[in-house]
């Protein structure tokens, strides 16, 4: 099973690299975008232009289903000015974000101070009666939640923060 899955993964990576990447690189080069991200079937390709804020240009290929929701910008009260946009790409580490739009429900027994592993379920978003898991982005201690049980949350909204173990 694992071999079959690995083979599939390898084929997907090969296909994405050969078919999609050249197009994306071209698009990025012909634009002023700082970053370009494409998600397909649980895979995510992100191209980032080398600039002052992100150091080296990099291409990352990660399976989206297993990746932490790290590419998301946390909700802020202020709208960034155009010049700041390229700087927003890395959100603060440890922010737990909602995976959908719906109503938030914490997981029973998980509260501030809980020790979590990366991928542990922190709570759920109820989308039309279907619960979707919100997971911890890293190993650490959960801080106070920013959201009350039953509160409406949107996609990408910060729910709370996990402080990494020192």
């Amino acid at each position: 099973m694992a071999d079959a899955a690995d083979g599939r993964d390898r084929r997907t990576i090969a296909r994405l690299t050969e078919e999609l990447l050249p197009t994306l690189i071209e698009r990025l080069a012909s634009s002023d975008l700082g970053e370009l991200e494409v998600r397909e079937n649980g895979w995510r390709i992100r191209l980032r232009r080398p600039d002052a804020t992100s150091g080296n240009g990099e291409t990352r290929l990660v399976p989206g289903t297993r990746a932490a929701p790290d590419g998301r910008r946390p909700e802020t009260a202020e709208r960034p000015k155009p010049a700041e946009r390229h700087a927003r790409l890395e959100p603060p580490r440890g922010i737990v974000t909602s995976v959908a739009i719906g109503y938030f429900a914490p997981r029973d027994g998980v509260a501030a101070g809980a020790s979590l592993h990366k991928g542990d379920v922190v709570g759920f978003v109820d989308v039309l009666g279907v619960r979707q898991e919100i997971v911890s982005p890293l190993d650490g201690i959960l801080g106070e939640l920013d959201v009350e049980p039953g509160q409406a949350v949107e996609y990408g909204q910060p729910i709370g923060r996990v402080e990494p173990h020192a």
Partner: protein
Amino acid sequence: MFSKILIANRGEIALRIVRACRRLGIAAVVAYSEADRESRAVQLADEAVCIGPAESRRSYLSAPAVLSAALVSGCDAIHPGYGFLSEDDTFAEMTRAHGLVFVGPPPEVLERFASKAGTRTLLARHGLPTIPGSGMLRDDAHALAEADRIGYPVLIKPSAGGGGKGMRMVRSPRELQQAMTICRSEALSAFGDDSLYLEKWLDENRHVEVQVVVDRYGNGVHVGERDCSVQRRHQKIVEEAPSPALDDGRREALTESAITAVVAAGYENVGTLEFLLDRDGNFFFIEINNRIQVEHPVTEMLSGLDLVAEQIRIAAGEPLGYSQPDVVLRGHAIEFRINAEDTEHDFRPQAGTIEAYLPPGGPGVRMDSHLYTGYEVPPYYDSLLGKLIVWGPDRAAAIARSRQALDELIVEGVATNIALHRALLGHSTFLDGEFTTNLLDRVGSGAFLAAARAA
């Protein structure tokens, strides 16, 4: 009337719907993907909610995300705009099941008009001449048999969606077999549905469509026709009204038979009946669009109607309140689709930051666009940056104003097709009103551009 509407779309049409809501005193909630956080519609909306990542399948095409957004924001209706979920009868049904109103035809009407082959049969029964075509194709053998029956050339078309994706014209069984695979995969990736059908292809045809507005009580009017014959790879790029190819007699025959047939067939809300017009002025019904269309402003310029507001009023159950003699069409209007595409490199779609944006102005000039200086055009969606619509008392005046408006329009930062529009306006085929749908592809857009440069 509704108190709050969720707008499940993006770009210029999301902005257009915000404006209609404002006019009607309805609060507008814009549902946006992560890639559209900085969009003009989000900025202008009364509220905005992020429904998912850039990928449409998980945001604008996700029925649960859109419905959940409408519920958590306390909306009583959803406006789907065009594309995305706008003609999805299952989504309309789900909307109703959650106690919300779908702004468009009600689910049972959408379902009745969902199948293109079924709609052709239905409207033929109500007196419309239709283009010969097939039902849904089961496999290649079925396609070959149907093409044989219809007669080559035929056009392969996807059952779901529009916009030229998954469409190919073929002249032989060999071409048909080759194209089927490509069309299936294009249709699947664009609409999540790879079912195809065939339509007889008329060489040298024109595309003319009739705008209709029908309320729940069987009152309906047509708002004239639009000519959308300037196309590139089956995608409309310039639309105008009235059609230069119709005289008054044929125009009346077309528009009257269209409105009579759809009212009799039980259509409801704003819609468009598309026809092909052959060289001899015969028209053939091809399909109905059960939604607002990109080119609707052309008709608004002639009629003074706000078609998006009409959609909302009718969906709320209001009676039409006017009849055919009240619909007066004045002058001539032309719409230019301004796309972010590189005309020098096979019209490749462009993404990037808009470094300067200055829309044109003056009498009869309307620009529907979500652009602003500093806006980042995301690479994930279609390339439409906006629409320039120009009105004049007659076609010559509309063309003269259009030239001036296109010269004034400044979009910097991404490559656009503005030069192609200027080139079209300098070409005798367009000036004489002689465009046919395959002309740009047959002659090549490059030829038009080169001719304009040489002039």
